[in-house]
């Protein structure tokens, strides 16, 4: 079922005006702080009533000119930034809370999630005794046990430190990557986006600037102002091939990237973020380089970006970005349609299984 959002809302000097379609899968709502991400989620959940528009899930109308389905009738799984576990209930009671109000997931399913999320050992603890990471895992288990039709996650990892964030992110991906329901995931962290997003909605000052498949949005020039520095890059979906002498073949639509130290199962899928800074261009085919990954490509777009120039290139059907200096761009006499060689400096740290 597809979640169709078309709403306006005004609060003080801030105006939200959003039109967004979320098919099953993860839609990452990405944007700076104060851009209206949380407000959007609260409108979807019914915690805030928008001024006008509609919110529909399939043929059900949650909000419209004459409808405002109450929060508890919407079947939303909501994970808050701060967890919001009930302090007077045990972890088990928290996770099973939704079962009080109607048939939820069968116990085996809840048990399975508890195992996947690593909270099985915490069931008899009180929330006050949990760490931040444990709390968010429990909050996620609780939201899933609701058997939601739509899952909303509002910066679920933002309260955690970096190592903890990576841990929870692994589990999170395991649980929601194959979601058969629309998942709205709010964040301003590029790592979380890369790992989780099927689609991205770029939001700024209450408006959706750009939305679409993650790979398209990330390479779209419109998105550049929101992706400073190393955040700018392409998203390449690869199939994990064989590993020989510690180097793994990653096949993508346009060739094979070889990377060392990739922890991934052969035959699996892997998302590789190739930062624009890590792609070097050359007019001649380079020889005698240590880099394994050199591809022939066609220039599709050239655009100045602050002091540098961002060049879009097509390797097969895959678009990559390269950030080069203006001087280099002039010296190389780059123009659209030109053939270049792209050298990728990608390392395993950018590969995320």
């Amino acid at each position: 079922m597809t979640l169709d959002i078309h709403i306006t809302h005004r609060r003080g000097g801030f105006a939200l005006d959003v039109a967004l379609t979320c098919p099953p899968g993860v839609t990452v709502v990405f944007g700076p702080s104060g851009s209206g991400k949380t407000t959007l989620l609260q409108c979807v959940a019914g915690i805030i009533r928008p001024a006008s528009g509609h919110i529909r899930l399939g043929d059900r109308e949650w909000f419209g000119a004459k409808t405002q389905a109450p929060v508890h009738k919407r079947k939303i799984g909501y994970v808050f930034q701060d967890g919001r576990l009930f302090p007077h209930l045990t972890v088990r009671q928290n996770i099973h809370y939704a079962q009080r109000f109607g048939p939820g997931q069968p116990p085996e399913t809840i048990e399975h999630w508890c195992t996947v999320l690593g909270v099985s050992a915490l069931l008899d603890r009180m929330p006050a005794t949990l760490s931040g990471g444990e709390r968010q895992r429990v909050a996620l288990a609780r939201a899933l046990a609701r058997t939601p039709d739509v899952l909303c996650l509002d910066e679920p990892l933002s309260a955690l430190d970096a190592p903890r964030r990576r841990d929870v992110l692994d589990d999170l991906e395991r649980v929601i990557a194959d979601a058969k329901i629309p998942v709205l995931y709010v964040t301003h962290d590029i790592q979380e986006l890369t790992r989780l997003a099927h689609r991205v909605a770029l939001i700024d000052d209450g408006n959706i600037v750009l939305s679409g498949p993650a790979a398209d949005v990330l390479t779209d020039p419109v998105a550049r102002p929101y992706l400073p520095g190393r955040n700018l890059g392409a998203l390449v979906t690869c199939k994990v091939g064989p590993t020989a002498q510690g180097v793994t073949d990653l096949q993508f639509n346009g060739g094979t990237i070889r990377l060392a130290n990739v922890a991934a199962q052969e035959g699996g899928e892997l998302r590789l973020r190739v930062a624009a800074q890590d792609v070097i261009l050359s007019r001649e085919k380079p020889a005698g380089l240590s880099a394994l990954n050199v591809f022939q490509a066609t220039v599709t777009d050239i655009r100045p970006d602050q002091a540098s120039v961002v060049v879009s290139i097509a390797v097969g059907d895959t678009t990559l970005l390269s950030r080069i200096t203006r001087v280099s761009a002039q010296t190389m006499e780059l123009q659209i349609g030109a053939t270049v060689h792209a050298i990728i400096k990608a390392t395993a740290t950018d590969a995320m299984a």
Partner: protein
Amino acid sequence: MWTDGLTVAEWQAIGLSIRVATIATLVSLPLAVAVALVLERLRFWGRGLLSAVVYLPLVLPPVVTGYLLLISFGPAGAVGQSLAVFGISFAFNAAGAALAAGVMAFPLIVRSIQLSLSYVDPGLEDAARTLGAGPIAVFRTVTLPLIRPGLLAGAVLGFAKAMGEFGATITFVSNIPGQTQTIPSAIYALFQVPGQDAAVARLIIISAVLSLGAIAVSEAVARRQR
């Protein structure tokens, strides 16, 4: 036994005080929860006025509160006469004593509940709603358990206040042994006669023991819930 010295009137006063304070507290509690919720959670025109009315007995001299009760709920008062049609009377009886005690204790109970409500994160109630809880279920499963300490504290405070209430009670329902003569009224009556110091001391001790006992019980209950 030192209790041998208690007269029938004193025993009556003790029994009546406990009954009056218990009823006043129990009847006030649900109403106080409702008022506290309205004052703490709703923003509406006239909220300040409601707050002022609820807290008025706290600042008014008790005698004035008693007088206001007398001219409204008394036999000649508008409310008193309307209720008389249904056979309900607060005139010079234990129900009137409970009403006076309840009105005086009410602001303290509301205050205590309101305070604990202000510490309940409304976000938790939102979370409960996303998990399928309707408004009543949210209150029952989240709000109420979280304000339980305030509820308990309010009940104890209200009970102690009701036990000690004097000014409003004696003004509204006078001082009838067995019907409206509570411990404070009995103490006051004994004070009027020379040579009753021993009886006064007995009643003061009993009164203190009862109120401190209520506090001890509530602490025990609170500890068990933790």
